[in-house]
């Protein structure tokens, strides 16, 4: 029985999990696929008897016994082939791409996360929350300042945040440019202009917070942490604006059972077996769902709450 881990070469959580794997089972065999894995050779077999077996680059074997953990990284088509010409690129798209897409979808049901989890749609998540009767902040996507103004008039405090990634990269001839942001509160200055258009942007009613909750979901179980971000002006709007000199208090938390049941249904419907939830508890004791990140950081949650998540993940990979 072997374990395949697809990650980044410098991911600390991966290293921690590997420590636990070797400690809990010395005979574990771990294959690592790091960063961009160019696929030069691939063979795949399917049968009722043996389910699906794949051999990548003649050295990584995935069969019905293999446990697969997708953490980071990506499969790539052989660059030599795609650089050649349009025809070669199209041929690769036709022949190799579907195989890689299939690998990205998780095979043999023996996996923790899959590459495809990266593209879970944030809007779909919000819709699912609504359908499951989970509170979400009123949300608006628009390209017009006038519509935003109406929204702000209605909700008073509104935040804007990126709809997908907080990072956007692009390259000039000389430099690499990286744009980053998290949530920002809209101020009256933002609304002073005459109507103009922008790319469709994401706005939500600002929800007052008693505490923020980060909850790590792993195969049906929740490991939650309360973040007391409201005492610190720096972290009040977005706790990711970390105060490293006086970190927000982070302590273990118990989500109510009925909310956990609904969130579990959400995960099952999305076919996610792991993810990190961002939830707000309001001063009126209401829980608001913000988002779930299928593949996020859990190390600080594990450390702050002594949850030993790395051990739990290792155990799920060695079949315990």
């Amino acid at each position, binding site marked *: 029985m072997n374990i395949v881990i697809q990650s980044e070469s410098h991911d600390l959580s991966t290293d921690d999990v590997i420590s636990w794997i070797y400690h809990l089972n010395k005979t574990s065999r771990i294959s690592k696929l790091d960063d961009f894995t160019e696929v030069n050779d691939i063979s795949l077999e399917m049968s009722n008897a043996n389910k699906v077996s794949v051999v990548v680059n003649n050295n990584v074997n995935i069969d019905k016994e293999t446990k697969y953990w997708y953490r980071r990284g990506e499969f790539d088509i052989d660059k030599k082939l795609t650089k050649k010409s349009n025809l070669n690129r199209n041929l690769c798209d036709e022949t190799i791409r579907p195989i890689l897409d299939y690998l990205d979808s998780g095979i043999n049901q023996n996996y923790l996360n899959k590459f495809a989890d990266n593209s879970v749609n944030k809007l779909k998540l919000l819709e699912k929350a609504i359908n499951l009767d989970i509170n979400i902040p009123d949300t608006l996507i628009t390209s017009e300042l006038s519509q935003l103004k109406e929204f702000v008039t209605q909700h008073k405090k509104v935040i804007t945040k990126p709809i997908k990634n907080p990072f956007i990269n692009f390259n000039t001839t*000389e430099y690499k440019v990286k744009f980053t942001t998290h949530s920002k509160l809209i101020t009256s200055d933002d609304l002073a202009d005459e109507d103009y258009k*922008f790319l469709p942007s994401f706005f939500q009613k600002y929800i007052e917070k008693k505490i923020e909750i980060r909850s790590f979901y792993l195969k049906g179980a929740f490991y939650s942490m309360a973040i007391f971000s409201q005492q610190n002006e720096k972290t009040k709007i977005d706790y990711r604006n970390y105060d490293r000199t006086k970190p927000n208090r982070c302590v273990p938390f118990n989500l109510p059972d009925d909310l956990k049941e609904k969130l579990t249904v959400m995960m099952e419907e999305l076919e996610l077996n792991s993810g990190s939830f961002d939830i707000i508890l309001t001063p009126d004791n209401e829980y608001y769902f913000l988002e779930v990140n299928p593949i996020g950081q859990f190390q600080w949650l594990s450390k702050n709450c002594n949850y030993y998540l790395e051990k739990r993940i290792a155990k799920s990979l060695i079949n315990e």
Partner: protein
Amino acid sequence: MNKLETKKRIIEYIKDHPQEFPFISKYWNIEIEEGNEASKDKILSISYGHYKTKDIAVTPFYKSISKIIDVRKLKGIN
């Protein structure tokens, strides 16, 4: 064009062409790096043998392994 100028240019461009950017772009934190691929790999210089993992910074142990140094005698040079 140096980094500062590039950054200024970008900020100006965003201001002058809002229709090409999302609303939040005015709050973007803009980081500019030399377009040198090699620089990142140089930093990931710590590797962990058969674990096949790497790191930028090293992780210390959570306590002193032994207490053989009389730390009191070192006061004043820290």
